[in-house]
């Protein structure tokens, strides 16, 4: 399953709930304000790194760049463009958005 999270982990519990309910082997794509969850040095860094043991984490490059945080993406997070976003949707048999 592909999980799409669009809210900052400091604003909403969407990322937290997503990580709680995403099965091992799923993918999580961070878009919009959700990309802050993929940045180094924040209080969720450890949690996200821990989650990466079981989940593949992606972040949308355009949203990272817009927010000036493309230079501090967590190791292990794969940055994708909108084409990559589309591919992730196509490659996973189901998906859900965590708003």
């Amino acid at each position, binding site marked *: *399953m592909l999980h799409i999270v669009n809210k900052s982990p400091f604003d909403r*519990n*969407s990322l937290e*709930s997503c990580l*709680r*309910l*995403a*099965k091992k082997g*799923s993918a999580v794509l961070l878009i919009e304000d959700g990309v802050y969850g993929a940045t180094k040095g924040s209080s969720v860094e450890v949690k996200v790194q821990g989650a990466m043991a079981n989940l593949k984490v992606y972040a949308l490059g355009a949203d990272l760049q817009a927010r000036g945080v493309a230079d501090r993406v967590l190791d292990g997070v794969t940055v994708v463009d909108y084409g990559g976003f589309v591919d992730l949707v196509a490659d996973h048999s*189901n*998906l*859900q*958005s*965590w*708003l």
Partner: protein
Amino acid sequence: MFTSSENIDPDDEGGVIKKFMFVNRKAPYGTIYALEGLEVVLISAAFEQDVSLAFVDDGVYELKKGQDTKALGQKNFSPTYRALEGYDIEKLYVERESMEIRGLSEDDLLVDVQIVSAAEMADLMVEQDVVISF
């Protein structure tokens, strides 16, 4: 249920039955998502799909008994959850952790539900063909 602009015949879907899950994570009244989400669920009944509702995070508050909106002047739509059974929508899953951290128990809920763990909810979600989040 259908308006004059509705030109879909639910019987024309070619017999396809998909597993639809509607995920509710927002409390009622503060925003419209719970109400308008329910409107989608009701419409989905006509399409005879395999429908489940998941209540996670503040979505569990949608099912709280005793909602009284008179002083607010908003419509109390909570009875609609009880009407779902009449539309053959009976799979209502509520996440235990979401209830517990909000101090809610099964007795607080206005309708019969299945209370599931996070792991069980995760299993349910991953089985779905279509997940719509409100």
